[in-house]
């Protein structure tokens, strides 16, 4: 069952210095599964995620033959309809809680804002729902977190608050942009377990954007490897070690290994021909 089908997506920026093609001809299908998008910075992975939500500011332009989400072509609907989809149907968790949460608003107020404004829920009911969401992402002391300001939370807590916020309206598709790269390994494992549970129990589709190939290999079902705005290889996560493309192999080999030899780590080969 396909939840999202993207055909020939491109994101271009017309700047003074010329045209920049951030995403070029990307096509993929997503079911109710975990899809990983991997690449270096500048490979277009974040832009691909944002383009699905049509969250690209001018001078950036999105073009696609088709971007079907649950039967609706996201390229053709008006902005008002798109706004109604963002949040309740498709949600995005941004990279850095430091910059994505409102620093002068209590966490509880931020969690309840959507419920109060969009769903017209009473204050007390919104508070109960918000606390439930915090419990769902395994925050141990939800009452304290509700009254805290973002700067009073650790990075891991902030990241979980953002996930909780995105999950309140129960979206069908969650786009997570490096949701764990600011976190420690042990907290990272917890956050991944939460996301994993949501995919399994709620039947949510997940696009997981990361530069960490090992993480994606362990966590996702399928992986798209992007280089200079193009998908250079698509493969099942369990086959990652058997990757054929030299760029994917390079991304894997440049990581240090526990118990590995201490030779200099191989640098990443970048061949312009791969991006043709």
């Amino acid at each position, binding site marked *: 069952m396909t939840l999202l089908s993207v055909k020939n997506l491109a994101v271009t920026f017309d700047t003074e210095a010329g045209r920049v093609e951030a995403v070029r001809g990307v096509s993929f299908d997503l079911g109710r599964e975990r899809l990983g998008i991997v690449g270096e*910075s500048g490979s277009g992975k974040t832009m691909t995620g944002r383009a699905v939500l049509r969250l690209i500011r001018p001078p950036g332009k999105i073009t696609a033959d088709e971007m079907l989400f649950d039967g609706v072509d996201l390229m053709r609907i008006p902005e008002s309809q798109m706004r109604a989809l963002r949040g309740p149907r498709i949600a995005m968790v941004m990279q850095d809680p430091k910059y994505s949460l409102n620093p002068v608003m209590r966490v509880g107020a931020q969690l309840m804002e959507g419920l109060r404004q969009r769903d017209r829920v009473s204050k007390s009911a919104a508070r109960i729902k918000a606390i439930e969401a915090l419990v769902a992402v395994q925050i141990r002391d939800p009452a304290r977190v509700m009254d805290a300001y973002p700067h009073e939370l650790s990075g891991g807590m902030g990241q979980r608050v953002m996930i909780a916020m995105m999950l309140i309206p129960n979206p069908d598709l969650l786009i997570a942009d490096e949701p764990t790269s600011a976190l420690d*390994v*042990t907290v990272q494992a917890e956050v991944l377990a939460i996301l994993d549970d949501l995919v399994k129990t709620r039947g949510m589709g997940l696009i997981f954007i990361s530069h960490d190939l*090992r993480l994606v*290999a362990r966590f996702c079902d399928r992986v798209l490897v992007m280089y200079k705005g193009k998908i250079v290889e698509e493969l099942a996560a369990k086959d990652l070690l058997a990757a054929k493309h030299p760029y994917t192999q390079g991304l894997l080999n440049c990581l*240090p*290994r*526990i*118990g*590995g030899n201490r030779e200099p780590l191989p640098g990443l080969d970048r061949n312009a021909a791969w991006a043709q």
Partner: protein
Amino acid sequence: MLIEVDTLSVTYRSHGRDVRAVEDVSLTVDARESFGLVGESGSGKSTILRAICGLAPISSGAIRINGTALPTPRGRAFSRRVQMVFQDPYASLHPRHTVDRTLSEPLAIHGMSGTDQRIMQALTDVGLPTSFRFRYPHQLSGGQRQRVAIARALMLEPEILLLDEPTSALDASVQAETLNLLSRLRAERGLTFLMVSHDLAVIDHMCDRILVMQNGRAVEELSREALATAAMKTDYARSLFAASADRMLQT
């Protein structure tokens, strides 16, 4: 031994109560050795580096270099011997200073001559084109900035480098280049490293001995061999090892 941290405790006062960031941690690092500190955030690993530099309040214990206790304030002789590279190259370089100014400042403070030639040499040593000399940090990528930060730390030709998560803000491929650069510089100049990271694979690649920390306390010291063969004694060190991203490929 070159660096000696002896039952060090660091206590901050926050909202009227004491926060013990580091409690009774001891470690020693030999000359030309590379020593790693691992643990979660809040485990006190970076605080130890900051305490060595005089940037954290030491409540008890001592830090000695070559057997001599460090003076407070640390003074110029200390900066000649010990330099630090910080985690986030976006925050640790002055945004309105050119690379040239960042690199020449330590030379001016210490009255060292041959500024021009030293800067060109430093850029070459860290693998940056000399044409970058008059650029500002915002004109550089993250990896290039971290190279500038490493060049800055090496301007005074120190013997000890304190490395606080030097690659955690970088992509996998840029991390590889930066780690290779650090290994090469250590071999060429006989440097001693005290390195902090939450990534066990990075620490394993760079260090001879490792101290695992949790909640401000030392949990277990491991040799590189013990780590590679998973011969850790404490549950916490084992759980850190099991959660390490590197293990994920093998399962």
